[in-house]
């Protein structure tokens, strides 16, 4: 499942991050690595606010399409 398909309030485990290398690196630094749990805090027209560790990360819809997740 893609991160972009998740609904507000849902939790999932990150499986894989793809996409442009530099962005992937940045996402990795922010905690978007395989195994991390994400929770969707809010969603607006595909753009999402995500809870990763204790921080809130906002991503646009295209980025949310690049993150593969699995149900917890």
């Amino acid at each position, binding site marked *: 499942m893609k991160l972009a398909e998740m609904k*507000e*309030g849902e*939790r999932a485990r990150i499986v894989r*991050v793809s*996409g*442009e*290398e*530099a*962005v*992937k*690196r*940045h*996402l*990795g*630094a*922010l*905690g978007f*690595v*395989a*195994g*991390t*749990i994400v*929770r969707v*805090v*809010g969603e*607006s*027209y*595909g*753009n999402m*606010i995500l*809870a*990763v*560790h*204790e*921080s*809130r*990360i*906002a*991503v*646009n819809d*295209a*980025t949310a399409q690049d993150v593969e997740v699995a149900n917890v």
Partner: protein
Amino acid sequence: MSKSVKIALAGNPNSGKTTLFNALTGSDQYVGNWPGVTVEKKDGILAGHKEVIIQDLPGIYSLSPYSIEEKVSRRFLVEEGPDAILNIVDGTNIERNLYLSTQLAELGLPMVMAVNMMDVVKKNGDNIDFEKIARALRCEVVGISALKKDGDRMAAEKVVEMAKKSVVEKGPGKLPDVPHVFSGSVEHAIAHIEESIQGKVPARSIRWYAIKIFERDREIIKKLDIGVGEMKHIEEHIRDCEKELDDDAESIITSQRYEFIQNLMSKALTKSEIRKNKATLSDKIDRIVTNRILALPIFILSLCVMWWLAVAENGPGTILTDWANDGFLGDGWHLPFTTHECREEGKYKGMEFEDAQGEFAKQDASKTAWEEAYLEKVNEGKSDEEKVDEMPEEIDEKVAATIVAKGVFVEDEETGEPIAKECDCEKCAAKRDAGDECEGCGCGCGEPDLWDVDFAAYKEAAEWEEPDPGQFGVWVPGISALITDALDRAGVNDTVKSLVNDGAWGGVATVLGFVPVIFIVFLFLAFLEDCGYMARVAFIMDRLFRKFGLSGKSFIPMIVGKGCGVPAVMAARTIENERDHRMTVILATFIPCGAKTVIIAMFAALFFREQWYVAPMMDVVGIAIIVLGGIALKKTRFFAGEAAPFVMELPAYHMPTITGIWRHTWNRLKGYMLKAGLIIFPACVFLWFVMHFDFGFNLLEDEQIEQSILATVGGWIAWILAPLGFGTWQGAAASVSAEIAKEQATATLGLVAANMEGASTAAHITNLFGSMSDFPKLAALSFMIFNLFIPPCMVAIAVTFREMGSKAWGWIAVGFQLFVGYVLALSVYRLGVLFAGGGFGIWTAVAILVDLWCIWMIVRKGSGK
């Protein structure tokens, strides 16, 4: 002299670095509640240790360069090599923060980790075992609360101690103990790489370099100049790892770092169970504030609130501005709570000051009306030479007895000043037009309220003297009054008086008069930024910005630009993509900055008191230009292509502290006021000289201002502005001088309008625009828009050139801004005139054609990638 010790302060954005920096060095750098506030490195001396320099680095998430800030920080840490690192870590989000810490530890420098926000950690019921972290990362760990100034000194003392020890011990051969966080095969590969780069890199940081090479970091590989054969060998090891772990090298490193941290945290962190994965208050606020329907209205509403506070009629901003202009900087003011009705015997006894002023104005109007009528009568049938223009000492009683003036006391629409006026009801006006004497209001129109001023009434009116403010409370004289007083007492001549009053002080006073408005705008912005809302605005705007090829990140410089364009252009550096970066620099200064706010405030007060929406509209217009300009630019081949993806951390909302907001506001306000002193003051003196002298350096009388240097030079370029409705030398002089600093436009207008009719600067300026165009309001609007949207002040232009990277790009930016400002002013004025019934001219046609061309540039299909 002992050698100075350098300590780098490194940590994630928003982890409290700047707060700690301020606490340790006693400086007052601005702390923001969003990532990317510290763009450049700042140095400070550790309080109590003259030899210790603390260096505040931009906040970073990793030592892999993603943004320009990360590059700056990394280069500094790796190449300049501080003596020790003070790594500040947000204790409430320790797992994510440790990701950077593991990398910092690998640099092999002495390091103290300061786990910040321990007060919150404890309140949350969490527990962090510093011992375990210290052992795993091979550094000292101290718990602190930078905000509460708890433990920060201890952390500083510790890092200083370590740094000094390492300076002494820094000898060859001694390798620091750095943590090993990776799995067997990766460690194996890293060991091989370490072997092959030995001697090429500083020994203590060899592990860090080796890991970077494993990640195939291009910058490092290029710098180390590793031989082709060697690199091939290294590449084999990397590939083996990738094959074994089924991932690319960089992801392996990232994942294993997090695995290491998670492992460590499972032992070192006990989280209170209750809070886990629950929506926090911040989350709940975000659900409303970033809601797809409510987000934009809430943002626009907050802009309107700001403008209401700053410039709305009867709003706090206006009240403070009036006090500043008329009271503090003007004639004077009554201390609050000391005002009382007049107790002295006399005409004003029992009246409040305002009523007394009104009564005096009314009497004065009657007196003036009668005197005018009297002089007219006396001068009847006389030749120009014989005419008198002042009231004689002895009034001819016979003539006086025949005079009954029609006095009307009205307030001047624009200035609120009391004036005497003839009845202008339709019937009376028709009579006057026909050449008949208006018989007063026998016409029955009922208003305005005319009264007869006969000789007796005149004598009574003439007895009224201006009320003495001292009789109505504790009167504090204003600065203008004090200066006039001092000049009178010094007995200087009129030229010096004019230089001081109109030139030096007048200009500065005009600018200082807007301090209340600026203060409120800055205060409001500080609040929005410090509470965390501004980061959300970037998120909200991302969807919109993406439509014209920018990411929401480009909005941050534009928000900063609300305060000042210079940091705004610099803040654009956080944008990783060069194309996005340039476009942001070009567009960021279209948001009216603090100085432009002064222009808006002045015009809102003078021309648009009833149109409250004009002021916030300027922000909306700014955003609209950014959107439409962005779309048009994106369609040219220079800027074609997708915007970089939006990934941004949103800090938790928190109630800003009063000291924080005050520091933030004061820092900006101080800059504004210093500018009034350092730039506006000399500029005004210079302008006064070019206004009062001609090219032969002859001192001019007030009526000869048209021959002044300023008028002549202004005249040369006025024709360019003629299509915009303010093409006089005054309009040109104000616009050009505004490039010194935008608020200079208001100061210059005050100066060049000084010999217009009217009792106050406000009236002068109103009348100035009246003299420029048949549609003064439109000319004023056009002037304001022109000055808001042409290139910003010189300083901002200089920074723009620097950030654009080349002269050619700089000119593209400035050329675009000039075009936008001119076309916008032209369209507003010409189309406005057309709709106001002013007719269709050649410039109306030009405006329409250019507008159509712009629309085409916006809607056409782009030239693609």
